[in-house]
């Protein structure tokens, strides 16, 4: 994507105050050596040479193959199931129905509302009604065909507004409305009274598939001591364990979950491994043998979670000089058949509440009012997907900002600058942003690099034949670090050995984002050793401390702090021993590049790190450190949605240039600049990778992605028809990285994983609208949608 990334990447430090040490991090006196360096990712060579094993590459000898019989109806009662014919088929070891689940017949990332095997009813096409384990995949598949199920079809609901209507078919006993969450700040009607312009618009986004490259594959292996070991590509091994244990009816310590290197997750593999591991474990329990379940691409689309679709009705007021006075929004957030990661974990966990909190955007608005409905339908279910509710609401408020600007005759950049968060701003939840707020700086940096004013002046016809128009778009965004639940904690163990080598035990998973590189970088920096001295033990719930899930852009920040705390514990021993050996006060010691020396006499005697470690060990001193870090307490009032739900935010501005063929509606993104305030770039190159991938996903959301559903059935199950951007769809992307130190982050860092894809979608849509006049308010803006949007205007602008 970028041919000369070295040249394009600009790391700018806006502010490098000395860190508040508090309970946190002390930056080494000698400065940073490994943190901030674009070291090569630890898995690069293995991936490039094909040596890295993904789950599907593991040997299958001795395994049984599990298959799931899926419901052909979106909503139906199960009258009867007959598995006897399947059981008789040679090679079939077991065929199970709902009554065969040994423990709780339900799993879910938040609520256990999804049956391991449906017993009484099915709620979406793809719901599992029977499980089979057989000696081969072919036999298992054949066995599924022999199972007879009698259904009684029920009326199905496919629109969240229909689901909320009185008398709607009830999908779960608890009713279709999972929650109505409210945000109330100031007096929204008074705010509208102050406004000179009030616009009302409805924006809509569809279900999206993650389209991770690696289809899901998990297995369960019963251990001789009665433990059940489950393995697979998974973002949240601890959540998998927390579900498998009750499903088997055993305590948590009798389940061991281990992560296999992931071929992409994007939030989807927080959820799907819970499903597959629970089902594989039930089959393994019944047969006493290892059971593997591997999904084909089409089955991934059918069975696993998606990005939540939303209908967002906005009403926003603004004064004639562009100051926002009131924001009102009703959000219909479609959960689909099962709760997955939608519902609230108090105070502010779950995708729905997150969407509500973010929905007014990164702007100072005195008066905000949001009603956000989360409800069940008979569609596939919404889960976590890169941004967790934030991309959807950004698509609404960022389009609205442009529509307001157009109404006022204002530049879209100016209206944003007028309202954007700065240090000390109060959010819609009345949280005071008291540190690390680089939003305006990202706007300035983007504007300058992109050349906004010249480019927006030259928007218009590209060719003499008047077929193509060029336009520019801007969008801003913010995204939390952490997940806003009560228990958002991360643990790490660090073990220093007598030869100076180190083992780092962390439960944060690798899915391509670079955790297995960045976390050892932090560990090496904190101990003063080299990166190659640190070996990372991969997530295994038997070995590593509980770390929570690898989600919410939390890994680098939360785990980074835990690692530093663990290192500090070991350093207590090392400091004491080195002080003795050097005859100086421990406070004067510097650990750096495998050397230990006196800060006040850097050219004097230096000890080798390994000497100190060996001496400490010989004296029986502690060389294993444990760090446990949780962010400052989250709060959110359940009635008013007021509080401080997340402890720090990442900020971003994107600018896109597009060309639109006004006769066909085809869009080409021709240039792109994206600026981020990330606190501190631990590994700038890996960070740039996150930005490029995130922008690609956002561009796909804008222009082509949609799970097309007809009567609850996905019509584009394979990647032939579910389109994501290719290299040729990507513009020449220029990432800008800014650093506004996060006082609560390791070396000042905050999260970046999800931010890049959030403003990308509205930036592209706004550019399309700028180019051709037509605005697509229901995504995607594929050629046909753009064509009709232009038609609706009576044709493109003629200037």
């Amino acid at each position, binding site marked *: 994507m970028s041919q000369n990334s070295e040249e394009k990447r600009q790391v700018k430090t806006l502010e490098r105050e000395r860190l508040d040490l508090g309970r946190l991090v002390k930056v080494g006196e000698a400065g940073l050596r490994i943190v901030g360096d674009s070291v090569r990712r630890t898995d690069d060579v293995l991936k490039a040479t094909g040596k890295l094993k993904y789950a599907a590459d593991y040997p299958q000898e001795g395994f049984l193959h599990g298959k799931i019989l899926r419901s052909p109806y979106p909503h139906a009662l199960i009258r009867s199931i007959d598995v006897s014919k399947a059981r008789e088929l040679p090679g079939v070891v077991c065929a199970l129905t709902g009554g065969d689940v040994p423990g709780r017949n339900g799993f879910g990332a938040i609520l256990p509302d999804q049956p391991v095997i449906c017993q009484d009813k099915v709620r979406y096409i793809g719901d599992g009604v029977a499980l089979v384990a057989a000696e081969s995949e072919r036999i298992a598949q054949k066995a599924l065909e022999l199972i007879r199920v009698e259904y009684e079809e029920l009326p199905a609901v496919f629109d969240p507004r229909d689901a909320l209507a009185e008398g709607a078919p009830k999908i779960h006993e608890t009713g279709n409305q999972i929650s109505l969450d409210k945000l109330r700040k100031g007096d929204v009607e008074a705010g509208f009274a102050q406004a000179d312009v009030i616009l009302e618009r409805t924006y809509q986004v569809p279900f999206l598939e993650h389209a991770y490259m690696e289809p899901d594959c998990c297995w369960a292996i019963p251990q001789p001591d009665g433990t059940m070991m489950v393995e697979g590509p998974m973002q949240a091994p601890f959540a998998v364990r927390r579900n498998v244990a009750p499903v088997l009816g055993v305590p948590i310590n009798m389940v061991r979950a281990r992560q296999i290197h992931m071929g992409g997750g994007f939030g989807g593999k927080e959820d799907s491994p819970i499903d597959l591991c629970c089902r594989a474990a039930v089959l393994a329990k019944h047969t006493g043998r290892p059971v593997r379940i591997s999904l084909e691409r*089409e089955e991934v689309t059918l069975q696993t979670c998606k990005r939540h679709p939303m209908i967002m009705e906005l009403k926003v007021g603004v004064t004639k000089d562009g100051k926002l006075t009131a924001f009102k929004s009703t959000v219909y957030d479609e959960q689909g058949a099962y709760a997955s990661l939608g519902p609230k974990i108090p105070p502010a966990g779950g995708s729905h509440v997150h969407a509500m909190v973010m929905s007014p955007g990164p702007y100072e608005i005195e008066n905000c009012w949001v009603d956000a409905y989360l409800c069940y339908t008979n569609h596939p279910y919404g889960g976590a997907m890169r941004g967790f509710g934030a991309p959807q609401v950004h698509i609404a408020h960022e389009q609205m900002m442009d529509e307001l600007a157009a109404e006022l005759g204002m530049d879209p950049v100016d209206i944003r600058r007028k309202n954007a968060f700065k240090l000390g701003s109060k959010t819609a939840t009345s949280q005071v942003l008291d540190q690390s707020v680089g939003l305006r700086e990202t706007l300035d940096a983007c504007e300058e690099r992109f050349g906004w004013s010249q480019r927006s002046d030259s928007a218009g016809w590209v060719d003499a034949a008047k077929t193509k128009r060029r336009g520019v778009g801007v969008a801003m965004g913010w995204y939390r670090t952490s997940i806003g639940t009560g228990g958002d904690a991360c643990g790490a163990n660090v073990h220093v050995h007598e030869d100076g080598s180190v083992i780092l035990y962390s439960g944060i998973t690798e899915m391509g984002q670079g955790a297995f590189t960045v976390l050892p970088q932090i560990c090496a920096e904190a101990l003063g050793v080299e990166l190659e001295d640190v070996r990372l033990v991969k997530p295994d719930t038997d070995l590593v401390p509980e770390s929570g899930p690898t989600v919410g852009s939390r890994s680098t920040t939360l785990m980074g702090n835990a690692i530093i705390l663990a290192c500090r514990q070991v350093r207590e021993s090392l400091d004491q021993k080195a002080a003795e050996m050097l005859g100086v006060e421990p406070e004067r010691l510097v650990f750096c590049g495998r050397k230990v020396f006196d800060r006040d006499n850097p050219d004097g005697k230096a000890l080798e790190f390994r000497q100190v470690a060996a001496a400490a060990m010989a004296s029986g001193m502690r060389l294993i450190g444990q760090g446990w870090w949780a962010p400052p307490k989250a709060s959110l009032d359940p009635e008013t949605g007021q509080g401080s739900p997340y402890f720090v935010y990442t900020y971003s501005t994107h600018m896109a240039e597009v060309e639109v063929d006004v006769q066909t509606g085809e869009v080409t993104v021709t240039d792109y600049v994206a600026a981020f305030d990330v606190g501190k770039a631990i590994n700038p190159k890996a960070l740039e990778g996150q930005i490029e991938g995130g922008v690609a996903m956002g561009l796909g959301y804008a222009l082509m992605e949609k799970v097309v559903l007809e009567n609850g059935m996905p019509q584009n199950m394979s990647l032939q028809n579910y389109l994501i951007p290719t290299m*040729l769809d990507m513009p020449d992307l220029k990432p800008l990285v800014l650093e506004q130190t996060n006082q609560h982050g390791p070396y000042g860092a905050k999260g970046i994983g999800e931010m890049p894809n959030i403003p990308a979608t509205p930036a592209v849509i706004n550019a399309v609208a700028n180019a051709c006049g037509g605005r697509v308010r229901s995504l995607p803006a594929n050629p046909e949608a753009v064509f009709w949007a232009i038609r609706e205007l009576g044709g493109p602008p003629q200037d």
Partner: protein
Amino acid sequence: MAQPFNKLHWSRFVEYDQYLVPDSLDQALAMLAEFNGSARVIAGGTDVVPELRGRRAKVAALVDISRLPDMDGIEQEGGFIRLGPLATHARVAASQLIRDKAAPLAEGCSWVGSPQIRNVATVGGNLVSGQPAADASVPLFALDAEVTIAGPQGERRTPLSDFFLDVGKTAIDPSREIMTGISFPALGENQGGCYQRLAQRKALVLPMLACATLVKVDPQNKTFAGVALSLGPVAPTPMRERVAEQMLLGQPIGKEIIAKAAESASSQCSPRDSLLRGSCDYRQAMVRVFVERGLTRSLALAGHALS
């Protein structure tokens, strides 16, 4: 309505009993004859393999013709270009001869799938699969190509106008017959042609609309001496816009007549409303745009750009 079992349960296995690799055409035909309709010819495999995945189609044997001799040539013989059906899309797209004398075909072939797919997928296979939006078939149809088919009764020649029968169905029976040649007139002086395509992304995607356009100009009278318009997918098979072609034939070249022909082409075709590839209304409107643009560009390529 219940969804069918095979839409909900997928397998990675490509199912067949035997895989046969004949050395000669006669041997290949004999193998097919022996299986009496239950075998299937395979060449590049990029269409056949996905179809056989999880027994979506059932065959007893695959007869791999990719090693048959003299079946992948790209050459000119007199006024005709002769293509071996085993020529891959990558080779056809890169061939200087095709780029000079059959530009729409080179362009069409360059759009098929990805580089990996184009390196193995054959132009013969593109025709035999009989898909209405096939990127090699649409331009070959405009080029008035004719195919040679070998079967138990010997060889026969069929023009593409008689070849496409329905979605996935052509005049060749891939369980008994083998395509042995493709030929069409080379473009010469005062002729020009191009291929256009509308899709939802820039690569690796089936078209919502494909359009091949050819013109021959009478340089003395500045009239259309020949016109071919072929479109897909606007009907169950690739489609020639004969009415619009006739409207133009012999007429003086001009913007107005081109617009009229484009309008006619648009009203003649009736693509179905597709959730994935666009509504009928939209695609009809696009036919108008593409025919107009295609004729304009083809005239320029023929050396007679519209003023």
